[in-house]
């Protein structure tokens, strides 16, 4: 049961870091509303935004209370899963983010799958054929992929596969419960657009890791002992070299969700990223605060998962150098 102990230790260490970061980050973000002087009245009243009307609306939202009282209400509400109400439309922020996150998770998960499959494929192929023309070609293509912005890829994909060939819808989202293909066809292009960067990073990281691992003495020893190349690759070389690649993935998934603003805009997806952008543009402070909370949780949870997987995969990573 030693591994259970290790997981618990990892969790405890992560929580010890997470809590203060979370509190400081939320406090600072909450303070920004007071510093900015932004008001829900601006959004709602339009041309009727007289000083009296503004004061009335702000009182309705509780913004006339002392700052710390407001922060405490928000913090305790948040710990119960209540992120307050959007200034834009009065809907619960938890509900709005929930809707958006379902869209973003669909796209990000598919992008991640594409990134892993294609990245591992290209990376392994380049490593197995390293120092050949194929290796150089793959490396060059991965370099191009890594510098292509998602929105450029997105526009090209729309132009070719949606407008030109008519194979996929250019915009919009259909929930999975309405059908597998409708759902998949709507998220495939945005997922492809988002995946290029992941494919490139995973491929290059894995190629480097595989080449380095295959030069280690234990691989030579295994060969001498007559183990098959396939067994050596899958059980020893791949396992050891995938650690750094998994660490890269630990950064990718949150970025795929949170950094998808542009892709979601291009493809007309009302996801988490676009919600975050729209809220910030509109000055919808409760929504921005909610976005921050969810972003922190996503990053921490995903890194916890990666740490646990790394620990299982490579016990040395738990001991430190």
């Amino acid at each position: 049961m030693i591994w259970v102990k290790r997981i618990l230790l990892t969790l405890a260490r992560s929580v010890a870091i997470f809590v203060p970061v979370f509190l400081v980050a939320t406090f600072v973000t909450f303070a920004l509303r007071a510093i900015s002087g932004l008001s829900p009245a601006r959004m709602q009243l339009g041309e009727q935004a007289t000083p009296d009307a503004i004061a009335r609306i702000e009182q309705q939202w509780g913004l006339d209370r002392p700052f710390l009282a407001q922060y405490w209400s928000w913090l305790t509400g948040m710990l119960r899963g209540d992120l307050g109400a959007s200034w834009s439309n009065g809907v619960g922020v938890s509900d709005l983010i929930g809707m958006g996150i379902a869209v973003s998770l669909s796209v990000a998960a598919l992008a991640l799958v594409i990134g892993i499959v294609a990245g591992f494929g290209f990376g392994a192929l380049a490593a197995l054929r390293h120092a050949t023309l194929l290796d150089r070609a793959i490396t060059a293509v991965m370099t191009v992929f890594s510098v292509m912005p998602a929105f450029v890829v997105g526009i090209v994909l729309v132009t070719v596969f949606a407008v030109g060939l008519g194979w996929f819808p250019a915009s919009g989202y259909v929930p999975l419960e309405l059908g597998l293909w409708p759902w998949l066809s709507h998220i495939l292009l945005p997922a492809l657009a988002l995946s290029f960067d992941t494919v490139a990073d995973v491929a290059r990281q894995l190629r480097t890791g595989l080449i380095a691992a295959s030069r280690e003495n234990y691989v030579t020893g295994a060969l001498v002992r007559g183990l098959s190349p396939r067994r050596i690759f899958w059980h020893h070389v791949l396992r050891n070299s995938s650690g750094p690649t998994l660490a890269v993935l630990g950064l990718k998934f949150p970025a795929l969700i949170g950094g998808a603003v542009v892709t979601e805009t291009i493809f007309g997806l009302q996801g988490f990223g676009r919600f975050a952008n729209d809220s910030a543009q509109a000055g919808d402070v409760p929504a921005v605060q909610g976005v921050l909370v969810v972003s922190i949780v996503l990053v921490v949870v995903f890194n916890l998962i990666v740490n646990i997987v790394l620990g299982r995969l490579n016990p040395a990573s738990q001991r430190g150098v």
Partner: protein
Amino acid sequence: MNPSRRTLLSGLLGLPVLGATLAACGGGSGSGAAAGAATLKWASSYFPTHWDPVVGGSGAQFRHLSLVYASITRVNEKGEAQPDLAESWDYNDQGDQVTFHIRSGLTFSDGTPVDADAVKQAVDRARTQENSALFGDLTSIDKVTTEGDLDVVVHLTQVDYQIPLLFGERVLQVASPKAAADAAALDQQPVGHGPFVATQIIPGTKAVLEKNPDYWDAANIHIDKVELVAAPDASTVVSGLQTGVYNFADLAASQAKAAESAGLDVFVQPGYNASNLSLNVNRKPFDDPKVVEAVRHGLNRQEFVDKLTFGYGTPATQPFPEEYIAYDPQSADLWPYDVAKAKAALAQSRYSGDDLKVELVIPDEDPSAEIVQAQLAAIGITVTITIDKNWATPFFAKDLVASLYGTTGRDSPLQTLTAHFGPNGPLNLSTPYEPDGFEDAVAKVRQTPLEDAAYAENLQAATRAGLVSEALVFTYSQPSVYVKDPSISDIPANPGHVNWTGVKIT
């Protein structure tokens, strides 16, 4: 015999081919519409944040809320008040009381009757609900009472023949009083008597509406379903239309050429769009009329049109287009662009040098601000552009020295005038300043029935009086550009509105 027989056989053989051709054409023209159902797929940059018409106010989203709500009156293609929920109305002899006669037998989609009491509650709510964005539009109203089931009596604080225009879509969309009892719920799930019933609303994202068979004008609504979505990036709207994801959208003028070359119908919906430079004559340096005169002559409207409207705009010297009843021909070009005159006026003012530094505060990045900056620099006024996310607070509190504003007007031209030039006008940055004689001109229009022979003349006189105002310098008009799939027929050209009466989707 043989020739006749051969002809008959040829005819019979031809039928399947013709049928196949028709079937193929039918499939093609469907353009993504569900088989057998006329579906409007509208991508809009103004997806409603509030579905309660009282909270939504007269901003652009009233066009979307009108899918669900009918209003007391509506406008035709000339901008004249027409029956809607009220089939007619009568003023008393003094002109300070108007009775609206509601159509009989109508219901809201929750079964509640559309009667005099429901309409009274709608007006009262617009005037008094705490978060109403309409209260400022209804100050002529003293109280509303009912007579019988179908007569609504509006008692006025003054003679005002503009009420039927005020009670249109922009101001008086009528919600079910039963649903409105919980205003917060109504704001998320609208219930009205309009052409469509909302069956699903995802906040900020998507609304699905089905045709309302009980709508009083249902016979003229030929669309079965509406899918309204928040528009993605402007450049993506066109590809969405090309691939059938959408079949209707408001369009950024910058994308109009792309849409046209893609074979889509691009059109301008008439309206009262007008942008202006707002000045505060209660602040230096605009408290000197000579500085204002300099600005008036120093602005080159054509540059705004050339650089900002992509061929769809026009220079504007008034808040109305030339073809409109309230447009005053006598005020067509009161202050022509003239740098020499502008500099001369500035030289005569009591300000010079650092006194002529002006802060222009705007809510967002706006290229017209840079045009203003460059043009005023050319005559000797230094403009600093400040972007303030919280711009609305000082603007409507009349604390700014200068700003930019664009409006789509109102159904009542007099309301447009008072909003811009009146002492309580929200768009008058110099409140309580108003031009001499404006108040009298306005009162005269209010006292003139809409069908009176002198109405147009009196209205134009009020426009003329208002334009003397030193608080606003109009610059250009960017009309509302829309794009639709050719399968959708033309929509009614009701100025400032998007209505679906008579529209068909093939």
